[in-house]
């Protein structure tokens, strides 16, 4: 069910019987109708093995299941909220940025090293993503949080986008990302520009960037 943006920090979702939603625990601000919130002990989809996978990967953000019929208002921590409608693509986003998503989306975790090996792992460290990141795939809507407003930058073949790792929020589509370094003698003597690392995203898709370098 698509989210309706009420303002930049508040979204409204309609819950209908038979369609589950997942949301971060504590993100509900108000609701109408008969809606129940159940803490999901496995923290998302799949069985216990998926839960263990997420726990090991450090991508186990406390989630709750939202079921019933009615409307729910979501907001969290005063962060700006961005909504994305997926139609078959994959969204890569950090689990703690996820505010709410449709139960119709398949949730998974991806090892950063699977794209670029050791450099992928280093990239995960630099961006604060850690070794793993969460993927959501299928048809449905996602609402995620960012510090400051979010804007979308399209990525086209032959036109890669460079993003400050701290401002990177999420990306979707068929995108390769790698860490571009610009370390020279200035960085070695501590007189760097502070922009030694950039994420280079190439391929076909969209990258979501926040207007701030502050992590959540």
């Amino acid at each position, binding site marked *: 069910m698509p989210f309706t943006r009420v*303002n930049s920090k508040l979204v409204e979702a309609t819950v209908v019987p038979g369609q589950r939603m997942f949301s971060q625990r504590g993100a509900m601000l108000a609701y*109408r109708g008969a809606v129940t919130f159940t803490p999901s002990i496995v923290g998302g989809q799949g069985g216990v093995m998926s839960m263990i996978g997420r726990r090991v990967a450090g991508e186990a953000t*406390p989630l709750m299941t939202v079921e019933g019929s009615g409307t729910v208002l979501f907001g969290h*921590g005063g962060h700006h909220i961005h909504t994305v409608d997926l139609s078959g693509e994959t969204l890569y986003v950090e689990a703690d940025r996820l505010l709410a998503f449709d139960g119709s989306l398949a949730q998974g975790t991806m090892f950063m090293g699977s794209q670029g090996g050791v450099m992928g792992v280093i990239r995960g460290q630099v961006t604060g993503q850690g070794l793993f990141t969460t993927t959501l795939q299928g048809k449905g809507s996602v609402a995620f949080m960012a510090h400051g407003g979010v804007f979308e930058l399209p990525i086209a073949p032959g036109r890669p986008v460079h993003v400050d790792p701290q401002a990177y929020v999420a990306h979707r589509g068929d995108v390769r990302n790698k860490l571009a370094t610009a370390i020279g003698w200035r960085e070695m003597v501590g007189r760097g520009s502070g922009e030694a690392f950039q994420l280079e995203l190439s391929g076909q898709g969209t990258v979501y960037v926040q207007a701030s370098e502050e992590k959540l």
Partner: protein
Amino acid sequence: MTHPAGGPVVHDAATLPSNDNVNPYAFSVDLEGQWFLQKGKMIAYYGQIDFHAIGHGPLDHLIAANFHSPLHASAWVVAQGRGKMLLADRAYDINSYDLDEGNLTIRSGNLLAFQPGLTLKQSIIPGFLTLLGTGKFVAASNGAVHFVEPPIRVDPQALVGWADCPSPCHHYDHAYMRGVLGGIRALTGLGGASGEEHQFEFSGAGQVLLQSTEQLMPEADTGGVPASAGPGVPGAQRPGSRS
């Protein structure tokens, strides 16, 4: 008003908005007489404005008529004079509201200022203040305020206030403690509560004000109820009881 290309807007006494927002985080009061405001929320003013502490001085009459919360008088002042006064609070979103022979209850920390046409009283719900009458008041919120109509259940931390509807009651959701897994959760805390098992429930006709996040603004002290208020007054301590 000058608009340097891309630069900040420059205001002076004549171009500052009259009783309106300058930007989402600052409000300009066109003062002509008196306004009540919380201490420390005035950031700048033009004109001749005096700030009087409440409790003594020449404004006893006004205070007797409009300020019925003696226990947090120390947090409020009266601005008197003519001019433009700018109000702001830690870069929170600021909005003004008009009441017309109405009543509105608001979390004490969120209320910044009000016109003397309104009367301030302490709500019997601890931590909330009630405004009665006709006039304008200014309130801050963490994220823009969203108006909703009952029936609705609201996260306690997201509630800013409510108008014209009956006071809320607590709603406790037992579904999250149901079943075997619920029992384990209740006993061990394993898996955690959903954090949403407790809400305020509003019913009847009126308006409920929500802020866009459940992050509370720091509370302002509303003062307690005098111990002499006696039995039956919520918040009043019984003589001899300790807390």
